[in-house]
């Protein structure tokens, strides 16, 4: 029971990170119907930018609480802004010229961009893993029995709270603001949206920027939680997050979050109760099973085949 509770907490934390990345996939897929393969690597770029910002600011576990909050917010802001610039550039260079063209072309440019980002970071920052001393420390003990402690660490609280908060903000943006309206319009019918005065290019760019900003948040959280990153983390995390987006029902924001949580939990429980080596197999098998029996995902709308 205690072991289960601890795994549940760990799984929710991991799931939150996947969920944040998955939102980027789901928004882009919703609006232009393509898998943004480079999104996982945008997350990786965000993580590296956050790492550099943390070192530059000189943040460590010894920083006083108040200053640490300020510094973390500053790091978050820097990472979000700079990562957004990357997201914007990737869209501008690799996807916009191919809009409305052959469906496979943007998929290939996306894979190309993913290769470019990975190798760029590898060249610029080296192939070695980058370890970071824990910054946010401390935890609360929730339960204790037979010497087994169920703890909820501060960083886990931060991750879950931030995720929930951002989720709420983004849902509001999509539901209430003119930008959200434009996004939903483009999702339905891009040509018609442009005819009624929606700036489609700008809307799509902003979607990439929003996705990249969230990926940067995920990148910072990942860095703080695991304390070690390398240029390759984007690939695996990206695939898992895309799995999450599909699982939840692609195009659906709550779906992406739910999918992220499900993948995070499955991975954690599988590692905890079975073998850690096959956790990816578990996540991917689940994806295959869900897609075969429930192709629209958990929260997606079923698609009636038009003949």
């Amino acid at each position, binding site marked *: 029971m205690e072991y289960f509770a601890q795994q549940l907490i760990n799984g929710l934390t991991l799931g939150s990170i996947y969920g944040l990345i998955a939102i980027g996939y789901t928004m882009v897929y919703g609006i232009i119907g393509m898998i943004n393969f480079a999104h996982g690597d945008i997350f990786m770029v965000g993580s590296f930018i956050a790492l550099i910002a943390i070192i530059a600011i000189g943040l460590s576990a010894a920083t006083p609480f108040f200053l640490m909050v300020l510094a973390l917010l500053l790091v978050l802001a820097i990472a979000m802004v*700079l990562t957004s610039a990357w997201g914007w550039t990737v869209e501008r260079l690799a996807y916009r010229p191919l809009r409305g063209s052959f469906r496979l072309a943007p998929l290939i440019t996306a894979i190309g961009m993913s290769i470019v980002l990975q190798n760029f970071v590898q060249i610029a920052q080296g192939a070695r893993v980058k370890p970071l001393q824990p910054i946010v420390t401390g935890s609360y003990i929730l339960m204790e029995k037979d010497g087994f402690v169920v703890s909820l660490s501060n960083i886990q609280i931060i991750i879950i709270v931030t995720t929930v908060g951002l989720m709420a903000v983004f849902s509001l943006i999509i539901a209430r603001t003119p930008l959200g309206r434009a996004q939903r319009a483009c999702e339905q019918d891009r040509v018609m949206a442009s005819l009624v005065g929606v700036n489609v290019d700008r809307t799509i760019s902003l979607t990439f920027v929003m996705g990249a900003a969230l990926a940067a948040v995920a990148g910072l959280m990942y860095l703080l939680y695991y304390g070690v990153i390398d240029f390759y983390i984007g690939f695996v995390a990206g695939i898992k997050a895309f799995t999450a987006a599909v699982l939840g029902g692609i195009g659906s924001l709550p779906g992406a979050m739910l999918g992220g949580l499900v993948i995070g939990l499955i991975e954690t429980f599988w590692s905890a109760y079975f073998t850690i080596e096959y956790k990816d197999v578990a996540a991917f098998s689940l994806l295959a099973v869900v897609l075969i029996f429930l192709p629209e995902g958990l929260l997606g709308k079923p698609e009636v085949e038009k003949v």
Partner: protein
Amino acid sequence: MAETTLSRVNGTPEAVSGERRTTQAFKESLIAGGLAFLLSFPLLTHRTVQQAEGLVLEPRWLWGVIAAVVVFAGRLLLHFLVWDRQVVRAPVAPRLWQGLAAKPAPLSVWVGPLLLGLALIFPFLPFVDRRIMDLAILVLTYVMLGWGLNIVVGLAGLLDLGYVAFYAVGAYSFALLAQYFDLGFWVCLPLAGILAAFWGILLGFPVLRLRGDYLAIVTLAFGEIIRVVLLNWYSFTNGPDGISGIPKPSFFGLEFKRFGDNTFAGFFGIEYSTLHRFIYLYYIILALALLTNYVTIRLRRLPIGRAWEALREDEVACRSLGINITNTKLTAFAIGAMFGGFAGSFFATRQGFISPESFTFLESAIILAIVVLGGMGSQIGVAVAAFVMIGGGELLFREFAQYRMLVFGLAMVAIMVWRPRGLVGTRKATIAVGERKAIGGDLVGEGHG
């Protein structure tokens, strides 16, 4: 294409005079350079270095400046050499392409046989040494993989991102059969193909009802699952350590060794050279690739091939014509997988050593990129793309290995933006009462599954 590029960059072409275009170009290049500087900060300008006390930053502002200047200059050059020239030639350039597209007949009539002839005499050309031989073998392996995947993606329109799985199945089939049953390459080659095809059917059966990107992501997942299993099933596959000592192919029982009874050199009474084995491997992969090509060309003219292409064009219409689409897709998947298996088996014998590291998603991505860059469904296009992407990369960037993949990725993006339909964008009809015409790429479907 020229006009769209132009209007994308400068607005309406007629309205902008030459001088203003130049100022505009400078302005935009400055912005691009500035953006490059912004992006290089801090990833490029501050390198994280591991020191005793932890990670420290090592500022390298110069790198950022270099990046900005390179992007500025590149953008400007691109403007004057490519975009602006097309303004002047705008009416000519598209017509040139259309002309090529409308009359590929004379082109393909001599390009194919020429390349084939070159490939046949290649090992005996004067400049060929061991390194070039090795590279040629590598390129041909990718040509074969590209042709194999082309059946699935180019003809049947099924987006398969896990093709490397079948490559791995082929390689491991041979390696394990050789290890456990002491079988040779020529016995294992067909077995590896059959096993890969079997896996193709096994994996294809549940997933082929999925459409488009879902199929892509599930095939990707399967590719990863197979790799992870190979990596972790230590008792059977030897895990990350891989399998070594995979036997080399023999030439009708003769082996390519310096000493021994049945050696190739001894039998023919020639002096032993390590190059013999490379030449032999070269001809094996050439034969395998040509077999793939021949079978594909034959299949395209058979009902199954036409059904694949019809499936790519419109699945619903296929169903209305009484075509069992599940079987049709499975055949494409299985035949594509079979050639992947052959190639894998060859890869194993060439390397003598395999490990799961050789079968990552990147391999799948490269093979798919070759197919799409070459022009889906075009055999020559795929061969040229494999040569450019693999051969070009190895030849030009051998000294700068770490920049190789960076340039590879950039080239993928650039070629796709330049020619979204791939190098050969037209489709040749499989049968005709009169002249066999080429069909423009804009009409040809891209598949939904």
